[in-house]
């Protein structure tokens, strides 16, 4: 592998002794013509390595905003966010992108696999972003096995898979770069309850093996799989 440029080494160096994620008095304000909307109001919490956390709250309470900040898709208006000890407050778009690629795993309610790529290619996508096209399939197969996807599906395209299978591929894609944290937005939102249960069992299993997981959900049953629940209301943590 090509050695990473110095700046990237700095931001990607793993600091195992640090909490995976720290929010300290984080404020997010959306400036709107009709008046500013305070989506998050002085939110502080900490995620330790190996935790499995669910985020719950009513619609409009700020869950997506929180997830976007945790996923380095956005930066806070005020306050500090640390990912494994790295402060992301005033990073450039390029640096944030590298953190997303190397430290964060993302899954979405609608799975959002790349329609033009097959299962293996979808899973290796961010590995290819880091290391080029010829990354091989060994690591992808390893991860796909860990999400319990049948081997004969590896060369299928997303449209040929069921919802549950797609979500497994999406989780595998999120895990390929061995991220510090897995962020899941409504991981079972588009699945029937039986398939949803299967995904939750998989996530529990992944967490038992050491993956740190934060998921946003509306569903109390789904939240019960987690070790801890962060409840927010009107942009504040209430429990």
């Amino acid at each position: 592998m090509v050695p990473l440029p110095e700046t990237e080494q700095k931001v990607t160096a793993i600091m195992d002794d640090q909490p995976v994620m720290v929010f300290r008095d984080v404020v997010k304000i959306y400036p709107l013509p009709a008046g500013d909307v305070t989506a998050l109001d002085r939110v502080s919490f900490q995620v330790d390595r190996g935790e499995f956390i669910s985020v719950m709250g009513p619609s409009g309470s700020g869950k997506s905003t929180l997830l976007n900040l945790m996923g380095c898709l956005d930066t806070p208006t005020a306050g500090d966010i640390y990912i494994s000890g790295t402060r992301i407050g005033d990073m450039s778009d390029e640096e944030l992108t590298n953190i997303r690629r190397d430290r964060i795993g993302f899954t979405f309610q609608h799975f959002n696999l790349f329609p033009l790529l097959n299962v293996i290619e979808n899973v290796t996508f961010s590995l290819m972003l880091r290391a080029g096209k010829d990354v091989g399939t060994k690591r992808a197969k390893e991860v796909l096995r860990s999400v319990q996807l049948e081997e004969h599906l590896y060369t299928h395209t997303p449209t040929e898979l069921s919802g549950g299978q797609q979500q497994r591929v999406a989780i595998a894609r999120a895990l390929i770069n061995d991220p510090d944290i897995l962020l899941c937005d409504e991981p079972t939102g588009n699945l029937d309850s039986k398939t949803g249960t299967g995904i939750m069992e998989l996530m529990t299993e992944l967490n038992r093996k050491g993956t740190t997981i934060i998921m946003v959900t509306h569903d109390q049953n789904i939240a019960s799989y987690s070790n801890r629940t962060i409840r927010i209301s009107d942009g504040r943590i209430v429990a």
Partner: protein
Amino acid sequence: MSGGIFFEIAKRNIRIHMLRSSLAMLGIIIGVVAIASMGILGNSMVLAVSESLRTVGDSVIITPHVGGSAHGFGGGGGIGGASSLTITEQDFLQIKRVSAPNIAIPVLQTSDRMKLGVGSDDIVAAIYGLNPDDVPDLLNLKEGGYNRANSGCLVGSKFAEDHNVKVGSRIAIGTDGDKGTLRVTGIIEERGMAFDVSTDSAIVVTRDWFGGAYNRNDYDKVVVKVKNLDEIADVKTAIEKQLNRRDTIVDVMDTRKTMETLFTAFGQITTFVTAIGGISLLVAGVSILNIMMMSVTERIKEIGIMRSIGAQKQEVMWMFLYEALILGVVGSLIGGVLSLVGGYAISSMMLNTTKYLFVPSSMVNIVYGVTFGIIICLICGIYPAWRAANLNPIDALRHE
């Protein structure tokens, strides 16, 4: 670098939208073919003309001024309808003096009926009268020898071919041969069209014979062969100064200048036609821009996902540039191949030859067309690619 996967995605995206990609490519193909084949045609035309005029780029041609001077009437004109305006012996001597040491060649010219052998039909052909001493300076023979006798003549190669005339054949000049019969001593090399004498379909007789047969003691034109090409303009000026002091009695044409003017005109026509081809390529570029914008709009969500899992702006940008480039390169290359076919067809149709097609100055037009096609596609891909790269990942993710 991760270029590979984005190139792969670009390729697949073109493939799944084959119809619209092909249509956009068709535009590029047409544009490239238009540019390249117009360029080829223009160049072939210039080459064809310059080849047929090649022998005469070194002359100054003096003809009687057309346009009402009373001076210079002489001889009463030939039977074959030569112009009544001529150049007198005195004028010729002046021309000869000022253009020395270059050779001044007086030319007599008419056309008349003639018969080749007993019982054959009359034909009409051009007849040139030249001093035997001047002929070797002006004409090269491909068969036989130069003629010095008043009973002999030379014939042009096309004349010989068309009428099956050989060295030794006899030609009876005039209605029922009333001007006499001449023996062919030589056949002149093909010269193509020319400003001085166009002998390919003509016969060349001695000046004395011509003067006797058509009662002439003057000339139709004078050709000055200039040895040093840089002097052409000077010779022309000197002659004009000498003869046109009071009245304009002669027109002096510098063949090199005339050829240059001709080629400039050809160049302008070619540029104009090629520019029309260029416009069709621009239109094709707009269609590329259009499908690229469609491609970006359709894939906003996909772009959002890519960005959220770690694709850099410029990687997204390249994905779309690759798409435009693939369309451009494939379309332009197909266009390049087709313009070879098109150039071949146009050349053989309009010039009756394709020998000017496979020469560097023609082929380079294909390179221009292809390059221009690729560049247009790339330029038209830049804006959509930039738009895609600079989408806000959060907004893009939320897009349905």
